[in-house]
């Protein structure tokens, strides 16, 4: 399938959202709100829940399925306070020794006036720096779009997984084409050269697992993909929780340390 077809599936309005997965996979989800500094950003959700008999902290970038929902969720484009809320919940998880699971589905961090005034760059940077040191197991899953720094801000984790029809990229194919070729219409071509599909990123070692979807995308059989995620999370968390913290942190550091190609 051409990469751009995956982009289209990843962006489908009917595609299952972070809350769909959270409500299906976990029990007793309690949503917690606010960054304790400015406001509650509805583009990011988070809280505490049970995965089987383990309490976990979950966060996710939330898109809407209707125009009204999307306006409330800002089309899944978080402001800095969203990233700060996620970080607050992750630090809370660390305090109470809960593993962390993040669901990523954003075209990118919101490019707006308030976002700049309140330090979008700083908020993302802070998450990168803090997440590398969190003393609990962490897993992130790209369930739709993984848009650049706005996605990475939740993805500095021990494991990064992608759904089969999700994409993860430094920039949207449209943006990429308009920067490099001054022509956003060449997005299809851009998608091909950018290496943004789950399969490509698995080959590059950027993600550890690609999770299957049924033909046409997860919306056609949500339970299939959600149950798969659940069973993989249970297995993986058991393994990560068995590691001592120093090993976990040094493996996480090495994971990100290894990216990059050069010669000298």
């Amino acid at each position, binding site marked *: 399938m051409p990469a751009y077809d995956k982009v289209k599936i990843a*962006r489908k309005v009917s595609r299952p959202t972070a809350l769909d997965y959270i409500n299906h996979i976990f029990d007793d989800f309690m949503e917690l709100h606010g960054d304790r500094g400015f406001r509650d950003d509805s583009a990011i959700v988070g809280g505490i829940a049970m995965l089987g008999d383990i309490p976990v902290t979950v966060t996710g970038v939330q898109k809407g399925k209707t125009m009204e929902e*999307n*306006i409330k969720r*800002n*089309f899944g484009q978080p402001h800095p306070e969203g990233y700060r809320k996620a970080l607050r919940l992750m630090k809370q998880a660390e305090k109470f020794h809960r593993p962390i699971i993040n669901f990523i589905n*954003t*075209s*990118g*961090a919101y*490019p*707006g*006036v*308030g*976002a*700049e*005034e309140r*330090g*979008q*760059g*700083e908020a*993302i*940077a*802070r998450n*990168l*720096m*803090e997440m*590398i*040191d969190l003393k609990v197991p962490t897993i992130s899953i790209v369930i739709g*779009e993984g*848009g*650049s*720094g*706005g996605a*990475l801000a939740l993805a500095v984790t021990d494991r990064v997984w992608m759904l089969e029809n999700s994409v*993860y*990229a*430094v*920039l*949207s194919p*449209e*943006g990429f084409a*308009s*920067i490099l070729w001054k022509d*956003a219409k060449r997005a299809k071509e851009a998608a091909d*050269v*950018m*290496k*943004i599909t789950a399969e490509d*990123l698995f080959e*590059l070692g*950027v993600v550890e697992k690609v999770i299957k979807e049924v033909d046409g995308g997860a919306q056609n059989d949500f339970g299939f993909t959600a149950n798969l995620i659940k069973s993989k999370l249970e297995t993986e968390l058991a393994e990560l929780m068995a590691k001592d913290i120093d090993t976990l942190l040094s493996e996480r*550091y090495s994971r*990100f*340390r290894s*990216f*990059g*190609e*050069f*010669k*000298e």
Partner: protein
Amino acid sequence: MKLLNNIKSGIDKITVDNLKGKVTAIKDAIPTPEKKEKKEKPKKAEKSADKDNKEEIPDGFIKCPSCSAVIDKKDLGALKICPKCAKLFRMNAKDRVKAIADKGSFDEFDINMESVNPLNFPDYEVKIKSLQEKTGLKDAVKTGRCTIGGRPCVLGVMDSGFMMGSLGSVVGEKLTRAFEYATENKLPVIIFTCSGGARMQEGIVSLMQMAKVSAAAAKHSDAGLLYVTVLTDPTTGGVTASYAMLGDIILSEPKTLIGFAGRRVIEGTIKQKLPDDFQTSEFLLEHGFIDAIVDRENLPDVLANILKLHNVEKAGEA
């Protein structure tokens, strides 16, 4: 300020046509009444005016983009400052090192590191090669050990002359090694940032450099060591959203462009023109994201003083 408030109150649930310099996204825009308004395009006008004038500017001279005076390049001096209006021209890494490090003290790391083509992006090698020939640089950052006011530190200086200082594998690796060296040798790190953000031709590998350098900065910080960033024009995108904003102390030069999203991306999203001072160092100071704005000529003294205040002993006196 009024304009900003207006913009804020109109918070923009609109999607983005993604343009220059930034890491964001695209979606279907909601039509707004303003959409059809023709935007003024002063930039374009300036550009073509520049072009016309350029033809008249003799070799060795340069036109100041701020006051329009035509200046003998030599008169900009070592610090590249317009003698008529004090506008700060961008400094390349070599000149910056010369201006900041004590004379002869800079011992450069990883001199021969250069990029490969991790995504097999068409013509990337050709572009790198031609820039290397043009600039004499291998890539967009210089790192090394030096003293400032006699006090030792690890210095990193980005260069906007090389693919807009974009963050590819080489920049990421050199800065990561610089942090690791500093952690091992208990030295402070000072980084002069200037960058358009991620390096598109390296795609996701470029994005991962943000996490890599930030991870190395975290280890350095965990060891109780000092990290100072000096944000210079322009510092945007993925560099702003990673190590630029992680300094214990964050300085900048006057009238420096600093931001996450590109101005045109934001204007395209909110369908309004942004005020001139948006995303300047003065704007960031006002909003609480940088510690101080320092004039270019004072930077060596201010940095030396910061090192002193953190008990970094003069070399040879420790």
